[in-house]
């Protein structure tokens, strides 16, 4: 099971990102463990300054802005 973390301190874009990933995972029938990281220190520990960021199994795959559906589907298919 993939562990997916969304990095972001509660901005609207971060919530959208979380929702998009959740929807995409359900659609693809992939089981994921979805987490939200809101502490600024924790976010920056990943080397990310521009939120929202996305971390999959400990690796940052995206930073700065809402990822598009196609990209998300690509992560889930890997």
């Amino acid at each position, binding site marked *: 099971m993939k562990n997916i973390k969304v990095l972001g301190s509660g901005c609207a874009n971060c919530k959208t990102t979380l929702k998009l990933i959740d929807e995409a995972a359900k659609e693809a029938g992939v089981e994921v463990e979805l987490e939200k990281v809101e502490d600024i220190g924790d976010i920056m520990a990943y080397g990310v*300054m*521009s939120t929202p960021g996305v971390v999959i199994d400990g690796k940052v795959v995206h930073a700065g802005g809402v990822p598009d559906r196609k990209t998300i589907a690509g992560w889930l298919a890997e």
Partner: protein
Amino acid sequence: MFDAFATLLVYQWLGLDPASHAGAALHFFVMDTTKIFFLLFIIIYIMGLLRAILSPERVREYVRGKPKWLARTLAIILGAVTPFCSCSSVPLFIGFVEAGIPLGVTFSFLIASPMINEVAAVILVGILGWQLAALYIGAGLVVAYVGGVVMERFKPERWVEDYVWKIHMGETPSVEVDTSLPGRHRFAIGEVKEIVGRIWKWVFAGVALGALFHGYVPEAWVVEHLGGKDNWLAVPGAVILGVPLYSNATGVIPLAEAMLGKGVAIGTTLALMMSIAALSLPEMLILRKVIRWPALAIYASVLAVAFTLVGWTFNLIT
């Protein structure tokens, strides 16, 4: 083109009189909203396609470890070409501190970033002409440089919240980027959605305010109360007025257009634009998370004085 469309819509189809208040205001509103949104879509899409939008992570890498004058110059230029939303001010601030970038340089960046960006620059040229665009951008760059230098004199390190010093940032990840044409197109569309989604309300508010000013405020009143270049109080007044008002740099442009059209002096208009874009309560509250009130008060005062000086200077020389 936009003028012709607005004329057709407002005066011919809706049958409003160009000499009436409502007619003039509505014409201004239709012309400016269509023009600004058209420009916004085009510019952001092209920048997205070229992947010309810098991330704060990259800015930090460019600025760190450079001699101070170079770091500051780079920080200002990079601040001016990145349309960051003020919500990224906090991670930016912490990231800069963590990279050992001097606080004065960080302040220069924070001043330049909301005031100037390439999107606003293109719209400035489109609406107000290149001379005023150059004046605004030039003055903004100088304020950002000098403002950062002055901030440094006050040793603002004293007022940085303790937890900021303790954060350790991880290695900047290299995120894979899809550079194929369809990938670039998707990225560009995403950027348009993100940036327009963030700033459309400022643009509408700015155009609406500009339209009301254009249609309803009599020129004689403006000249008497705001326009006179000899009225020294007009400039600091404009700066103070700008503090509770906040808008994105793009949103203040139509308001400036309406003010200039009614004869408000250039310096007064520039001072108001800068104050609305760069000096605002919401921005201060966001920065409060990383620095304490004394530093914020000095920051606000330095900017207010700088904008007033800019306004006076332009009123004197024009």
